[in-house]
Every structure is written in C-alpha cells, then in structure tokens.
C-alpha cells in the first residue's frame, strides 16, 4: 500500500509539479476550445457548400472528409510536424496540433452535419422557398438550425473525442497536460505527475460530458 501511494500519490512530487501541470491544463483548455469551435464551424460550412450540389466542389469535399476520417490523427501530426520543416515551413508544435485536429474534426463534422441537412424533410425547403426566401436564406434560417439540432448527439461525441486527442501533442512536445506530466515523470522518476494529469483530464472532461448530455436533452424535442 505504501509503495502504491509512493508511486502514484507522492506528496512531494505532486506539490513540485502541480504548477507545471496547471499550466498544461490551460494549454489543453485553450487548444480544445479553439479546435472544437473552428472544427465544427468549418465542418458545418463545408456541409453547407455541399448543399449547393456543385459537382466538382462536392467531390473535393467528399475526398477531403474521407481522407481525414480514414487517417489516424497521430500519423498526420507526425507527418506535418516532421515533414513541413523540410519545405521551409516552420510551425510550432501547438500550431500543428491545432491545425491537424481542427481538420480532422471538420471532416467528421462535415459528414455529420451533411447527414442532418439531408434528413430535413423536403417540405421545409419548399415552404421556405414558396415564401420567397432564396436557396442560401433557406439553408441558413430554415434547414441548418434543424439539421444541427438533429445531429447534436454525434457532434458532441465527436467533439469530446477530438479534445481528448490533444494528448497526442505530447509526441511533438506540446506543453499540454500530458506533455507537462510526462516531462515531470521523467525528471522525478515517479508516476504521480501522470496520476495528476489523469485527475486533471477527468476534472476537465467530465463537466464537458455532462454539458453535452444537457445539450442533447435540451434539443431532443424540437422547439421545446
């Protein structure tokens, strides 16, 4: 028991590295918020573009979405982080992590929102167009709000999954929660910082999971 506590809850180690892990918390929070906002907005925008059914454009969007959904994010992160400098493009590790996870989330969000757009009954388009609203106005004011409500559960699931992937930043040295914890772990030769990181993730993501549940029930019945 003492060995267990010493390994995972070593008071001295915890106290020493808590500040750096707290810094990591802010990095994780900031990255997560930026990724979720830009990924979902980007994905919804692509889904809207696809609604115009301009063949070459739709094909490009589908290819992009399929590629980024098929490739493991870690592969993309490593490829971009170690590949781009050879082309003379130097991006910080945080920027690379942000870009890749945003692109991956946008790919999933595009597919999810597109499924929502196609699920809105044709009569909604017709009713709106019959009152003189144009295609774009109908898409923005009538179709998209209904489509997004329909797909809130898969969208929040995907958003939660992608924010947890910020931990992948560790492999390219992003100073997020896990990055700080592994550094601390190697300096202290003790697993307590990792335990602290786990606790930080739970404290961070549990409210997010609960919030997503609330969001799902809030919009479960349309117009309630």
């Amino acid at each position, binding site marked *: 028991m003492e060995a267990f506590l010493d390994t995972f809850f070593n008071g001295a180690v915890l106290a020493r590295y808590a500040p750096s892990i707290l810094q990591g918390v802010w990095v994780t929070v900031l990255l997560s918020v930026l990724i979720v906002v830009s990924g979902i907005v980007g994905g919804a925008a692509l889904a809207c573009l696809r609604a115009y059914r301009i063949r070459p454009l739709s094909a490009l969007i589908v290819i992009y979405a399929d590629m980024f959904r098929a490739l493991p994010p870690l592969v993309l992160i490593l490829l971009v982080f170690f590949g781009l400098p050879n082309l003379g493009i130097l991006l910080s590790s945080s920027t690379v992590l942000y870009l890749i996870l945003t692109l991956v989330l946008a790919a999933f969000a595009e597919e999810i929102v597109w499924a929502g757009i196609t699920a809105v009954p044709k009569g909604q388009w017709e*009713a709106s167009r019959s009152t003189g*609203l144009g295609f774009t106005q109908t898409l923005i004011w009538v179709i998209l709000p209904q489509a997004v409500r329909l797909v809130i559960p898969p969208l929040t699931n995907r958003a939660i999954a992608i924010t947890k992937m910020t931990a992948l930043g560790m492999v390219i040295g992003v100073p997020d929660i896990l990055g700080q914890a592994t550094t601390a772990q190697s300096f202290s030769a003790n697993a307590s910082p990792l335990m602290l990181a786990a606790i930080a993730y739970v404290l961070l993501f549990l409210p997010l999971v609960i919030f997503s549940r609330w969001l799902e029930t809030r919009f479960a019945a*349309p117009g309630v």
Partner: protein
Amino acid sequence: MTQAAQEAVAPPTLVVRGLRKSFGSEEVLQGIDLTVARRELVFVLGPSGSGKSTMLRCCNRLEEPDAGEITLEGDPVTGPKVDVNQLRRRMGMVFQAFNLYPHLSALSNVTLALRKVRGLPRPEAEAMGLTALDRVGLKAKAASYPAHLSGGQQQRVAIARALALEPSVMLFDEPTSALDPELVGDVLAVMQDMKAQGMTMLVVSHEMKFARDAADRVIFMDAGRIVEQGTPEQIFETPHHERTQTFLARFSGRG
C-alpha cells in the same frame, strides 16, 4: 378611373397557357390552360395522379414547367429572366403537410419571410405577423411551437405565414387532407373567411362541400388535362363528361 374600372382593365390574377410537365417518360400535365380572375376562388378536383398538385406547384415554380406560359397580374412567372423569389412572395402557398418550421414559434414562422424577404425590422414584422395570426384565430398561440399545436392549428399558422406577405393569390395544395375530420372545419372556415375578404384563391382539394359553398368555379382534371369546368352547380349536379360523373359518383355521400 374608379377602382372598379381599374379592376376591369387589369390583367387576370393568374393566367396559365399550354402548361406541360413530364416526370421521366410520363407526361403528367398535357397542356393546361387556366385563368383565375381577381377575387375568384377556383376549385380543382380530380383523381390522384391527375396532375392537379403538379399544376399548382408549377404556378410558383416549385416544379419547373417543361413548356407553357404563366403570368401573375400580367407579369411573366416563367422565362429565364424572371426573379422567382420576387414572384413567390406574391403567391402564398399552403401545403398538405403544413411544413411549419419546427424550430420556430408560430409567430417566428410567420415573420421569417417578412424579415428576410421583405426586410422589415423585427417590431414591424411581428406586428404584421400578429395581425395575420389574428386573422386565422391564433393570436393567442403566437409563442407556441408547432409541436404543441394541433394539426388544424398548424395549418392555420401555415395559412397565416402565407397571408402575412399579402399575396395576390393563394395556392392551396390539399390543405385538409392530412387533418383529422374534426379539425377540417376550422381550416375551411379560415379559407371561407379569406374568400369573403376578397382573396384570389386556387384550391386543390377533395372537400366537395367547401367547393359548393365557396367556389366560383370548379375544374375537373384527369390524366394531365382539364376535362370539364363550370360553376359548382354545373359540375356537381349536371356533369357532362363521363369521367367527371364516375369520379363524383365515388364521392357521393361525402359532400
């Protein structure tokens, strides 16, 4: 010129000439000619598949006609240079399935086009929206969402949504077919009231009693053509065409 004289020389509200429409190899409209005069209520009757809904949907180009000419108060509806959105706000449409926006309150359903198409500021749009809801007897339900309204109430909100734009003509596509029988009356009463107020209306429906009470003219369509037309008395009491007779015989007892 007096108002009456102006109306006498003004072009008819809706004119359809040689309207044709095919879906695949099936020609569902085989040359329709139809004129709806100002303040007239034209009632369109016919078996399912006769093309009456398609004809109606061609009038505001929810279906694109293959051939033919349509004018609204003399202005072309068909043709390459037509701003279809401008014309559609002058033609209200009411659908069988209501098609209210489920994410918006009754009032917002009515004001959306006022704000986004006519560009009215919110307070003005809401005042007009409330007036329209009042006309269909649902001012008290302005804040309700469609999910909390009965079918009949939903259809009346849908009528208010079209009315609010002050259209020149209202197109009704089987407005009561999706309603429980006891809810039909309220919707028909609203339509009758609109007729009394001088609205021009083109109604596709199976409500024979409404046709007898409110229609100026009844048109019987079959297989993509207008087979017969006349006053309700002519069509219902002394139909000339055999197909009209067969169709009405099947409906006897309903009206």
